[in-house]
């Protein structure tokens, strides 16, 4: 018997569709090229990250909260927009829904393919049968989420999770909400009352993207933001401090310490210092190369007596 079991692995690792775009992104994880390409959101991301300072090594493990439920006992399918081309859907099926399908379909259930049917529902009220067009993605039985390459911006979409039976029939199990992908360039619709000649708009458009005053409409935007290999190869959008090779750093500090009468006035190199209640003192100095002459002078409270001791320290770094 096949049971729907949601493992942690299933939830955390989304079955990404093999595609050129995501393949490149994944491959980029191991690339070591310095991410110098500028792209939309890069600095926003860097600054955002800088807000959240963390120690460089992980600290003591803290108590972890219990795990989140792996399911909520609902039949639910949600569709979201990632960008003009890509959608993301996740879903959950009640065990009872699966059991019902099994008892209805008997052996057919096990022979059927799991399908995501992606409907283009632009400008219609979708009733299940009137989509402008649709395409199918075969998925594996345990998948509970999917990134969908919808491929055309500025359209409305709806997705069914269903079974394709061996005779070709499609049975819908879950239906998502409807979403709309944004355009990936300027609209071709113009407003009569606010007309603007194309060449002027092109100039404004380029300016708005900081591309100077003559960039052709749309082209630069697409090139720069989405299809640039420089972007796809970014392992992480976060700028990290430059990786050092093997390295060594050495520095020296000097500790000068001593004691006098607790009420004495003590100066080091002419500058007064504070004594602890017991008359002791400790000073710590960064020690640069060269010679340091360090006269330590104590004067008694009644100014009747004084003592001077002068350590001389030389640091030489080779």
């Amino acid at each position, binding site marked *: 018997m096949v049971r729907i079991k949601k493992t942690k692995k299933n939830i955390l*690792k989304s079955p990404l569709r093999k595609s050129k775009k995501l393949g490149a992104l994944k491959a980029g994880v191991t690339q070591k090229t310095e991410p110098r390409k500028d792209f939309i959101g890069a600095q926003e991301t860097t600054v955002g990250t800088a807000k959240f300072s963390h120690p460089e090594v992980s600290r003591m493990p803290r108590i972890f909260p219990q795990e989140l439920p792996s399911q909520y006992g609902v039949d639910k399918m949600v569709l979201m927009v990632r960008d003009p081309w890509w959608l993301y859907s996740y879903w959950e099926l009640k065990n009872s829904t699966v059991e019902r399908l099994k008892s209805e379909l008997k052996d057919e259930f096990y022979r059927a393919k799991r399908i995501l049917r992606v409907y283009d529902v632009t400008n219609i009220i979708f009733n299940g049968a009137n989509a402008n067009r649709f395409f199918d993605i075969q998925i594996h039985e345990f998948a509970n989420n999917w990134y969908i390459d919808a491929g055309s911006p500025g359209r409305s979409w709806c997705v069914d999770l269903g079974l394709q039976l061996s005779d070709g029939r499609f049975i819908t199990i879950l239906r998502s909400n409807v979403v709309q992908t944004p355009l990936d360039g300027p609209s071709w619709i113009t407003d009569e009352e606010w007309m603007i000649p194309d060449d002027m708009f092109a100039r404004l458009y380029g300016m708005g993207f900081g591309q100077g005053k003559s960039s052709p409409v749309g082209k630069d935007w697409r090139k720069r933001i989405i299809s640039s290999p420089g972007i796809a190869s970014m392992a*992480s959008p976060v700028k990290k401090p430059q990786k050092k090779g093997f390295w060594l750093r050495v520095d020296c500090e000097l500790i000068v310490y001593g004691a006098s009468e607790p009420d004495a006035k003590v100066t080091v190199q002419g500058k007064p210092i504070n004594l602890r209640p017991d008359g002791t003192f400790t000073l710590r100095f960064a020690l640069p190369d060269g010679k340091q002459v360090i006269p330590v002078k104590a004067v008694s409270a009644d100014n009747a007596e004084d003592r001077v001791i002068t350590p001389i320290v030389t640091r030489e770094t080779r």
Partner: protein
Amino acid sequence: MHKGYLSLVLHGHLPYVRHPEHEDFLEEDWLYEAITETYVPLILVFERLVNDKVNFRITMTLSPTLISMLSDALLQERYLKHINRLIELAHREIERTRWQPDFHNLALMYLSEFSKARDTFLRYNRNLVNAFKNFQDLGNLEIITCGATHGYFPLMDVHRESVRAQVRVAVSHYESVFGRKPRGIWLPECGYYPGQDEILKEAGIRYFISDSHGVLHGTPRPKYGVFAPVYCKGTGVACFARDLESSKQVWSSIEGYPGDYNYREFYRDIGFDLEYDYIKPYIHPDGVRINTGIKYYRITGSGNNKEAYIPHLAQKKAAEQAGNFMFNRQKQMEYLNDFMQKKPIIISPYDAELFGHWWYEGPMWIEFLIRKIAFDQDEIRLITPSEYLNEFPRNQVITPSMSSWGWKGYSEMWLQGSNDWIYRHLHVASEKMTELAKGYPQVNGLLRRALNQALRELLLAQSSDWAFILGTGTHTEYAMRRTKDHILRFNRLYEEIKSNTVDQDWLADIEYKDNIFPGIDYQAHQ
């Protein structure tokens, strides 16, 4: 005669990080660092400008979570402890660097800055929101609101009730703090999804800020590009779009100002550089090295060799770059004047924490820029979006395009393999919250407290910051924990409310831990 307007928009936000259950909590440093390095320096800039009677206009988001933290007595107490420790460290550094004049002068500079931060903090009765409110009341600052906990709206669209709760809770919180309604909103991460302006309209909000392509890819084509606001079709809420040219000058990692070699190096901090026993009292109690805020080096070059920071060279550079920024805006205006029938507006939005925290010289740069605009020219003027709408109420009507200012311009930063799993939990919680709000239209006492707390937990779980940190893939432990904690608390509250078995002690405990928005009304989630 001026040719156009510049609107500087600073987005101030940090997620709600407050852990009364721990004596010392590392992530609270996000707030303390931002206070010392960004909020106080900006307040001091504004104070100097007001004292010198310089006319200026700045638009600034103070996110509801940031306001709540700045106004919180426990965090105020802890900040004071934090800044006092830093002052002590600066004193020790002054002594330690006696034989290194370059560093010694910098140690003196840090002592002066930290002391000013403490003085300023105390002068405003420990609550820096008072400072920003003063500048708003004087007419120099327009404070706009944000999503209650900075939830990323486009990925919440399937349950708009949650978007509505984010907006409503933010607006009523703003009113309770500033005594009037907010005129504008910073959509968290500039995330806009068509139709969500409806919710802004209901809340009485006049405008929001989007990224460039939100307007440039809107339908129909925007006649003036990003250089004039548009009204959203159907609601009339105004949308102002970011000008990427001015943004790039500041943001860009290649040609951007903050990368200048004379500027202070962010990544070299004495918390990491100095001898362990010496620095130990000033880093994390676990003994883990962290940034202290004392940094002695300038960027110097692209290599690892760093030289000492020289303040007056950095200052000169900041002045020069402020002049360059102004010059470029003037050129833009001249060009735009040729084919616009009204005065253009250039919207330059930045993360507030860029200034001072990331870009140490940023506040100085802003001050130079404002003074230059006020005294050295008359082609551009500073304006706030709402003032612009008053002067130019007639604007084109379009439907802006879904967009964000995040990585690649859409939702991928918050929706990728490392964080997409959160939405199945968040969305179910949203659905349940709607069910609760409908199912319990009017209750009092314990049940009401539980319902209000349920909404707090849901909102806290929705902060885009958690998805962002998960998305960056490093140091994700805390973000993971916060996401889980709030969802689990929400789930338990839901069960206890439904079965009328609210555990009073446990409720009191999470009310104490997650105490944001004391005046919250769960009915906001509709």
